[in-house]
């Protein structure tokens, strides 16, 4: 009973609560901001409270309603779902906190907070859904909200980019929906719990992968993500670290690691596709001059590592992939929020026009390099463990050549992140009015420091996330090899 209540709170408090935010905003903007933070925090706390029962199988965190036409509307909080929900809602909450500082100068804040909280809420719904159709519904709610958020600044170019992101991800989702129907044809149900362990056809896998890769910005469906950098920085951070691109990764784990069996050939095809994605986007990141686009390409590249971990089919790799979701979320969230501070206070996104900012933004510079170290996978930061496990997972499924390709990707990662860091924060400045540039506001600095600190702590205290992930991997039914 308790589990069911917590589960409902985690989903419906942000989904339903978001619509009250504009009302709250009419009363006081301060109240609205706090309420937004509270709504997302409730999701995190409720998810965290489900943790003990989720780790012991998650049967307590389950309810469903029978609907006509044989549909079921159900939610389940098992280990994987709770893990993903905790990561997303935690980073989401930090980003809402940051938004309070960042968004304070802009119009339409009521709309902003409504969308952001609904965005996180739809992620919660998606993560806990047991039914493919409702999973799809939350998937599309996220897409619609995301479309508005990317186009938040309403300029012509911005709206065009938002349309592009919407069209690509919705195209993918519709293709995926066809895949769902193929599964329905085969099993006669959309309820994932009833089709555990079913081997689905290659067509269904391929169609679903299109949806997943479109959402998780993987080659060749990735170019909307760098373009989405026109959104307000906290939104980009949300897209990259907590919600949007993590949907595809989560869906991959949910479908192909927990639920369906698939032809083993996919354990070779997917790593090759994501390997190409990781290297092409890393190369693009080295050339890119816009700081937000640069970090966006980095996300595309790092998503390749996550997919590699999840797709090779070895336990080490899966564990690494899941840890990677956490580590990358913390670090990439931090990087984007730092980029937001830089972009807002320096007034440009072009890294060739910056330089020397460490002098005026010491906190931002240090948090940026902390997060960058974690993305590079250097110990003692958390990214080290996930990167090692992903690579050794590829090795232990006897795909050492793919692992070697990813080592090249990791080298490129070091190069482009150091390049970004030095061009923004080191050397002589090229900015006019350098003396007047100030550090971000206090809530912004607190947010980035928390993320950077956790990136470090997640490495030193790796035993906690690692034990969590270990339990999740044991729960997974369909682990091939």
């Amino acid at each position, binding site marked *: 009973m308790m589990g069911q209540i917590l589960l409902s709170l985690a989903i419906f408090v942000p989904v339903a609560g978001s619509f009250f935010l504009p009302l709250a905003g009419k009363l006081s903007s301060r109240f609205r901001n706090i309420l937004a933070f509270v709504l997302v925090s409730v999701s995190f706390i409720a998810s965290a409270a489900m943790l003990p029962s989720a780790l012991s199988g998650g049967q307590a965190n389950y309810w469903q309603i029978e609907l006509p036409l044989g549909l079921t509307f159900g939610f389940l909080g098992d280990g994987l779902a709770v893990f993903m929900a905790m990561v997303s809602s935690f980073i989401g909450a930090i980003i809402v906190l940051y938004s309070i500082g960042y968004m304070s100068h802009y119009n339409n804040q009521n709309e902003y907070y409504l969308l952001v909280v609904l965005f996180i809420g739809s992620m919660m719904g998606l993560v806990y859904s047991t039914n493919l159709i409702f999973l799809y519904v939350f998937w599309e709610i996220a897409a619609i909200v995301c479309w508005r958020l990317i186009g938040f600044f309403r300029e012509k170019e911005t709206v065009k980019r938002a349309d*592009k992101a919407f069209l*690509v991800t919705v195209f993918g989702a519709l293709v995926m929906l066809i895949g769902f129907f193929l599964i329905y044809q085969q099993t006669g149900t959309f309820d994932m719990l009833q089709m555990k362990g079913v081997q689905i056809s290659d067509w269904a896998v391929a169609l679903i992968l299109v949806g997943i890769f479109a959402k998780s910005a993987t*080659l*060749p469906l*990735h*170019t*909307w993500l760098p373009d989405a950098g026109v959104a307000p920085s906290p939104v980009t951070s949300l897209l990259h670290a907590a919600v949007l691109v993590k949907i595809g990764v989560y869906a991959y784990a949910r479908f192909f690691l927990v639920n369906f069996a698939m032809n083993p050939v996919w354990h070779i095809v997917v790593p090759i596709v994501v390997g190409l994605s990781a*290297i*092409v*986007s*890393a*190369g*693009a990141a*080295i*050339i*890119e001059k816009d700081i937000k686009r640069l970090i966006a*390409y980095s996300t595309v590249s790092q998503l390749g590592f996550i997919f590699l971990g999840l797709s090779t089919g070895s336990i*080490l790799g899966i*564990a690494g992939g899941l840890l990677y979701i956490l580590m990358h979320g913390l670090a990439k969230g931090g990087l984007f929020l730092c980029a937001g501070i830089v972009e807002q206070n320096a007034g440009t996104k072009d890294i060739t026009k910056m330089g020397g900012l460490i002098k005026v933004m010491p906190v931002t510079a240090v948090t940026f390099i902390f997060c960058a*170290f974690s993305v*590079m996978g*250097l*110990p*003692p*930061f958390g990214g*080290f*463990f996930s*990167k*090692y*496990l992903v*690579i*050794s997972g590829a*090795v*232990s499924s006897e795909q*050492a050549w793919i*692992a*070697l390709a990813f*080592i090249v990707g*990791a*080298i*490129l990662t*070091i*190069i482009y992140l*150091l*390049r970004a860091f*030095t061009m923004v924060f*080191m*050397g*002589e400045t090229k900015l006019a009015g350098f003396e007047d540039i100030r550090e971000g506001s206090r809530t912004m600095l607190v947010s980035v420091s928390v993320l950077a600190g956790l990136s470090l702590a997640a490495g030193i205290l*790796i*035993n906690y996330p*690692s*034990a969590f*992930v*270990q339990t999740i991997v044991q729960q997974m039914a369909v682990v091939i090899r």
Partner: protein
Amino acid sequence: MSDMMLLFPIFVPVFLGAVMFLVPGKAKWVKEALLLIGTAVTLVVSILFFGKNMDFVLPWGGFGMDLSLKLYQFSSFILLSVAVFAFLIALYSVVSMKGHEQAKKFYAYMLLTLGFVSGAVLANNLIILLFFWEGLLVLLFAMIMTGGKKASPTAVKALVLNGVADLCLLLGVGITVFISGTAAMDKINLPMDFWGSFAFALMMIGAIGKAGSMPFHSWIPDAAIDAPLPFMALLPAALEKLLGIYLLTRISLDLFIFQPGSGMSIAMMTIGAVTILLAVMMALIQKNFKRLLSYHAISQVGYMILGIGTALPIGIVGGLFHMINNAMYKSALFLTGGSVEKQAGTTDLEKLGGLGRKMPITFTCFFITAAAISGVPPLNGFFSKELIFEGAAESGLVFYIVALLGAFFTAASFLKLGHAAFLGKRRTEHDNVREAPWPMLVPMIIIAAGCILFGVYNALPLNNLIQPVLGAKLGGESFAGILPASWLLAGISVGVLVLALANHFFGVKRTKSGLGAVDHIHYAPGLKTVYKWAELRYFDPYNIGMVIVGGISKVLWWVDRGIDWVYDKFTVRLVNILSLGIRKAHTGSHRLYIAWALGGMALLAVLVAVLI
């Protein structure tokens, strides 16, 4: 002694290093005290540890990543050496870094580095080794950054070059752990089949990369100029060599079955030989005290790799002996360079000269250690080099000849350096230069005395520290002794030294200056152009690598742009073309639209009727 104490040399310095960040900037002596306490405690602990056997396992990361530490003869020897150098250099830095605006951070990084190095040495789990090993990258980057604004390109270069080597090590560890089914280093012993050799090669790259061998070396000469001097004495000269050669020995002796004459052995010896020769050729023409030394820091590691690469007991013993000797004289040489810089204000050899009288103790230390690195008997460098020569001569004449050439150029460049800095005419602005303060002199004196001790009484290090590492592989043989095993090779080595001396006098007579002693080599026809290109960094592997990465990235970027074009332009045009026909039907006429709607409804009604 509880096995838990194995955590001390890791956590004490790391903890104090972390505390250092909390010390307010204005507090006097607190940071210095923390540094000295941290290094001293580590030193005491590692002295207590010496010769003991301990094991400690703490479950940590899951998935086989247990914090497993093992103290045995080899690791206790390396740990002790690390602690000694860290303490001496800490003592030196307290004076030499005084008043440096980044001193606090530098001390903190120094302590953290000490803790991480201890961790890497004690690790008995490959993944934990990797954790500490790669963690040093962050500290390396941070330490070079303390050199000031201009240091950041060098810091990036160091991180990228070492990062490449470390990522190779990561893959090597992954493969090794997979093949052997365990990450416990004392349980792994793999044959060199295809994957075995592949893993060995990757781990070797990691090891020699840390040691600063070619092609992972080119950040060292840059750091010599940009980073604070104690950094050079601590990391590239001492700790990184110890660590790199430690791992190289571990993989060659324990983790893999490494045979003389195997392909890997020849590859390793080739890397060693190339490193010796090219780096020393570069050292020869340097006109800056620190930069000259830094090229020797690269060149000397070539000897160690060559020695261990022979896979013969004599070569491995020689390589290890050379490792500890090099750490001694190289760090002492950097320290002498530091005191010259501190007292005379520059390390530019064109502006130095005649300092020997003003700084007699520094000069004496320099003289001893320079003689040791040049291989003058009976100093320590002579004996370790002889062992490597014997191993090399047994493995292939070409390796021996290259090693000899290296010895010639080493001696020649140190004759030039000593002459240019300490002898000759003193500049008037250096009339008031004084000897360095005692805390800077003491470490130099101790290390220089050690160079004499380890030479004259080489049984002490060989029998107690180095030969036990090989254990049974040695078959009870001992290479200790004041008399050389092969009079022929020793004679040739001494002959080479005499030649170097003759060359020096020839050069000095020719150009009338100590600095010009090797100009006849520098500006020899043919060599002159090569040197010019080298000075322009045409051969810097980092620059070459960056050009390649830049080119490939550009191509990948265009691939990406191509894909984007499909979305932004191609799809839009395609849709426009495809919709041409339909567009004609949408004229804006309401009547037509109503007709369409009605038609559609009728069609739907028919459909429903048919289906029901």
